[in-house]
């Protein structure tokens, strides 16, 4: 799976979990850009992404991403 496909899947998960179909993510998007992306929703997103891609993040990773691009990189390192 290439990164643009991952980004698209992640975007769909954001739309579903945050219940907002206007969300358009780019690699540069941060939590500041998405109103509903707060601490609790972050956890909901992380676990939904794990389930979708059948992967497990470490607890350090969960707190480390500064933007969507870094999140996509973490996913990309795990799915081949």
């Amino acid at each position, binding site marked *: 799976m290439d990164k643009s496909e991952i980004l698209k899947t992640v975007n769909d998960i954001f739309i579903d979990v945050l*219940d907002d179909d206007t969300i358009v993510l780019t690699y540069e998007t941060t939590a500041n850009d998405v109103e509903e*992306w*707060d601490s*609790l929703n972050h*956890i*909901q997103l*992380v*676990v939904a992404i*794990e389930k979708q891609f059948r992967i497990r993040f470490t607890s350090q990773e*969960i707190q480390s991403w500064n933007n969507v691009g870094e999140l996509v990189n973490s996913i990309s390192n795990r799915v081949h």
Partner: protein
Amino acid sequence: MEQPLNYIYQKIETLSPMHSKKLKKNIAFFDERYYEQANSFFARYINILHHDHKTLDYSIDCYLRMIADVNSETVEFLRTGKYTSSTFAEVNQRVYARPETMEYYMHGLIMSQFLWKHHYQMLQYFTDTLPQYIKATKSYLEVGVGHGLYLSKALEILNDNTTLTAVDISETSITLAKNFIKDSRINYNLKDIFEFNNRKKYDFITLGEVLEHVEDPLKLLQKLKTLLSDEGILFFTTPTNAPAIDHIYLFNTVGEIQDIIKAAGFEIETERSLLSEEVSPERAAKLKIAILYGAFLKKSKAS
């Protein structure tokens, strides 16, 4: 002086912007009494902290440590559908018997009473309803007194000649409650509630967020029934889907809580189900958003 609430919200925003975002969403749902009550609570609380050579920054730090715990427990809970601990022995060792953990946890929890919408609303429900029972309450017992905030409210509301008793399994909680309330009328007992028995019956018992801390909540309600006078009232609160370091019994739905109320031989006088996030009931179920349930119960006549 700057209002404590402003200071707290600003500090949390600097230290944890993502959590601050979540907190700010709640603000819209606080009622008009909120600012006055929260600021006066924090003013009193800050005084107590000062006596202990601590500042509000210390408590904000405790609160954020508690949030970090809740967040990591939530990740596990959403992954597995279970709480991470399931026995009393585990959480006793992990939390109650550890003064250091218990200390930041209780300071964090008392802060949350005025930062979380559902905690604030539950406290209002309690203080708005308790006055109905002033006359009938000659003796009052609180089980799992924790930080002591509910007991301090009961003390303000009830008659001066009502006897007040508190039980908690953690020494840290008892010390905190004593410092917070500072009133010699209260009789404190450092005990596991299952081992508490002083052959007295109480007209009113409060059990705030303890049911999810025991292996067999039905047994706990039955135990409290034996401590309650015939016409007595039990006020209790417990959450669904609320992962925390010391929660062991998972209620998936409010229906499951109502079932054990009946099974224990109680009837509901009034009840509240307070969502921890403002979402529709469908989304709350889908995302397993915690609901804080609270009710005033009396012994059911049939049993």
